[in-house]
């Protein structure tokens, strides 16, 4: 396997555009070096956050390419993004039809190879339906579609998606969904908790993880989880919509940045 960090070149300041977004958003400044990775961004009929993800990653100095759901070759990528939207109109269940798209078999192989896959919103729902992540996303408990900023408490800062932050850090990232209530059976939940596979939890502005700050009824305020091997992340909030101060914040960039920043310098 050619790992992403082998392929990538060390990025000096010259590789990055000198925009405000190019400065590290890291909550753990000075960790590792940034590399340029090639991200494949999946596009299903009904996906709508693909361009936002592409824009955010390009602004962060990364190479991107959009991958139509009928394509099956994803080997050329270092990491994959399954973006948000309403793939196949959310018919039957969110993500239920997309998971049988031709590209998904390749995504499973990609994940089994240990390469990074991030599923955002509808992408999280698709990864759950595909069995790459446990549990299911159900209708929000209040039945409303919620589009609002949330505070995410970092629960595990030793993953390839969160090592630029520190545990208990708060990342301000918006949600935009009607079916984001994370549910799983008791055994699955305790397995997730015991093995620190809950990466992000919805919290209050002071880090309170309470029902009051739970925007959708998710068990234990769960906002994002990783798979057993730690290379597949699913999260309902949209980090790509929090990568530019112009639209309200750039904490989301810490999550993407973690994917292309070397982990070896972790203290």
């Amino acid at each position, binding site marked *: 396997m050619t790992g992403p960090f082998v392929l990538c070149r060390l990025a000096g300041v010259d590789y990055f555009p000198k925009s405000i977004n190019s400065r590290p958003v890291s909550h753990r400044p000075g960790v590792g070096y940034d590399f340029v990775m090639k991200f494949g961004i999946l596009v299903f009929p009904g996906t709508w956050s693909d361009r936002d993800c592409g824009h955010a990653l390009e602004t962060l100095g990364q190479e991107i390419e959009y991958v139509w759901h009928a394509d099956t070759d994803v080997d050329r990528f270092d990491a994959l993004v399954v973006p948000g939207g309403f793939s196949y109109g959310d018919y*039957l269940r969110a993500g239920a039809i997309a998971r049988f798209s031709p590209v998904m078999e390749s995504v499973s192989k990609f994940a089994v190879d240990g390469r990074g896959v991030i599923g955002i919103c509808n992408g999280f729902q698709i990864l*759950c339906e595909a069995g790459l992540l446990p549990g299911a996303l*159900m209708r929000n*408990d209040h*039945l409303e579609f919620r589009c609002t900023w949330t505070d995410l408490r970092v629960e595990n800062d030793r993953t390839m998606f969160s090592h630029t932050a520190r545990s208990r850090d708060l990342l301000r990232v918006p949600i935009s969904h009607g079916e984001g*209530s994370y*549910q*799983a059976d008791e055994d699955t939940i305790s397995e997730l908790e015991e093995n620190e596979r809950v990466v992000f939890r919805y919290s209050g502005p002071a880090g309170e993880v309470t029902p009051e700050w739970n925007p959708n*009824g998710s068990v234990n305020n769960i906002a994002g989880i990783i798979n057993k091997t730690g290379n597949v992340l699913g999260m309902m909030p949209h980090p790509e919509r929090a990568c530019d101060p112009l639209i309200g914040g750039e904490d989301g960039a810490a999550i993407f940045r973690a994917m292309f920043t070397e982990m070896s310098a972790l203290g």
Partner: protein
Amino acid sequence: MFVATVRVTLKPTVNDPQGLTIARALATLGFDSVDSVRAGKFIEITLDESDRVVAEKQVNEMCEKLLANPVIERYNFDLNPA
């Protein structure tokens, strides 16, 4: 030809916010006898298949693979000649 009528419902242990909301609405309308409501999906499938056993097997597979999510849902179906 057979027609399969498939019902997909949430497992009894899974919270059903839609059902709860419908129950509240019914109570507001004065239907005091409503104890609980569970909402689900109804799917009708016409099959071009003459063998009942084969048709039943196929519908089962459809439910397992696509129509129901075993994590949160369960299903049952009737099979009648079209």
